[in-house]
């Protein structure tokens, strides 16, 4: 597994990709600072809804992950190097798991730092709040990574489809249709923030922590298994 993991780290550590991730991950921090410094500073509720819920968990995290996860398998399919791995005498899960781990390894530090700084600034050094936001961001990264790695395997249009998913599903439907929340990674992250620090998102309705944890496990495991299954059954270009 180590060879696939190291290979994927090198493949995904391109300068432009890291630059895009840096810019994206910086946005919540910058906007949080600007918002808090403005004369009409937002309420906690407004901050959590707009910055933590919509921006960090619903937009920035999936975008950062999409930038690399779709390429983890997608680029190998496109440039036909995936055959180097699938023609090796290793089970398919030993390809899918290290690919996913490499994506998380690269994306998680960016999002963890972004989430920590954003909440540290907004909650004025509240450690518990910052940890709750950071942990939920990392969990969100892992879940989005599992989904987008699979997407890169099943479609050559993974970036486009991923953007549609982020905008329509996570951004639009999950915000207005309550039943969709049970199928929204963004809302698992929000529920986790609340579960780790009950002062956070202490308003409105959100998923229970138990449902969020169960669904997170199912989503992560489901997409990972789907990737393994896809690797076993697809025609490798």
């Amino acid at each position: 597994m180590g060879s696939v993991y190291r290979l994927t780290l090198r493949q995904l550590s391109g300068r432009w990709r890291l630059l895009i991730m840096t810019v994206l991950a910086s946005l919540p921090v910058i906007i949080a600072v600007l918002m808090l410094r403005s004369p009409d500073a937002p309420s906690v509720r407004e901050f959590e809804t707009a910055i933590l819920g919509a921006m960090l968990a619903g937009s920035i995290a999936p975008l950062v992950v999409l930038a690399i996860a779709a390429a983890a398998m997608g680029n190998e399919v496109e440039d036909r190097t995936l055959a180097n791995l699938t023609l090796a005498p290793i089970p398919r899960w030993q390809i899918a798991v290290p690919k996913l781990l490499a994506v998380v390894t690269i994306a998680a530090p960016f999002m963890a730092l972004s989430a920590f700084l954003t909440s540290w600034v907004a909650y004025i050094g509240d450690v518990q709040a910052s940890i709750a936001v950071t942990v939920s961001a990392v969990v969100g990264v892992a879940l989005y990574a599992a989904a987008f790695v699979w997407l890169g395997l099943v479609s050559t249009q993974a970036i486009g489809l991923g953007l549609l998913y982020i905008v329509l599903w996570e951004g639009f439907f999950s915000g207005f249709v309550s039943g969709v929340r049970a199928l929204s990674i963004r809302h698992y992250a929000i529920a986790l923030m609340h579960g780790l620090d009950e002062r956070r998102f202490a308003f409105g309705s959100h998923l229970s922590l138990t449902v969020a944890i169960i669904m997170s496990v199912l989503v992560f495991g489901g997409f990972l298994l789907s990737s393994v299954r896809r690797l076993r059954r697809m025609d490798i270009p």
Partner: protein
Amino acid sequence: MTLQQIPRLPLASLGVARDDNANGAAAPVIRVDGVSRWFGSVVAVSDVTFEIGPGITGLLGPNGAGKTTLLRMMTGLAATSRGSVTVFGEPVRDNPPLYRRIGVMSEHETVYGFMKGREFVEMMGRLRGVADLERAVDRAIDLVDLADAQHRPMDTYSRGMRQRMRLAGTLVHDPELLILDEPLNGADPRQRVHFKRLLLELAAEGRTIVLSSHILEEVEQLADTVLLIVNGKLAASGGFRAIRAALNQRPYHVRVICDAPRKLAAEVVRLPSVDAVNVDPDGAIVVLSRNVQDLQIELPRLAQSAQISLRRVEPLDDSLESVFGYLVEQ
């Protein structure tokens, strides 16, 4: 460097055993049984059946004939729509352990440009569970004669060098079966010579090598057995001569040089094995025959009885190129 100069990893060290059936006769290494593959309404491969044993087998056909699709099914990279492919007696599809015994080089330049050549071969060896990795990598790189360039990134290589380093990655685990799709693409003449010699040496060690090519001369020079694929079907198989025999309905052009061409032409045209005769401006006779076996017997007899001295009798189209062209026309 040749194989004789390089210490080989014994196949037994990789846990590899030869497949023999109960009678002690070698079982086919690859068995393709009634295989078809279609993409929507397009049939790429249609009901192809053959077996491949040790030695070099050439898969020959024009572009789009279905060679690559067939090779991909033989390697397990692609599924069959119908039929089965077994390698060493096992289904090749979704059977990763089998790849310990198989080396595959696709026609595409499947390299990672950011990697140094040696890193690539090391990675391929590591993925294939090679025990003595350093030694295996040294050997594989020496085989393809790229020791001097092994520490350079592969995106600085020429196409031919990338092909050779890919071959090193294919050979690093010392596979019994090599499946190579258009392996000579991009190689310069010197590299081609080296490559051909290497393949012949690998085959002489008892390996099974399947290679596809549309360069007929190369297949003719390398392959013991030829599989001709035309329009997704197996048009002919066997040794080159066997294919020719199977195509006995095909007209042959035979050039005859003698001391009395017009006289011989007048006699030869009466032979039942001859369809047509032309006398070239240079005085040579070109005989068109659909039964070259009979012509081989009748022509000397005729010349002797007519007291004509034959100086040279040579086939004009005794090459895969002409056989191939004929098959494609059919």
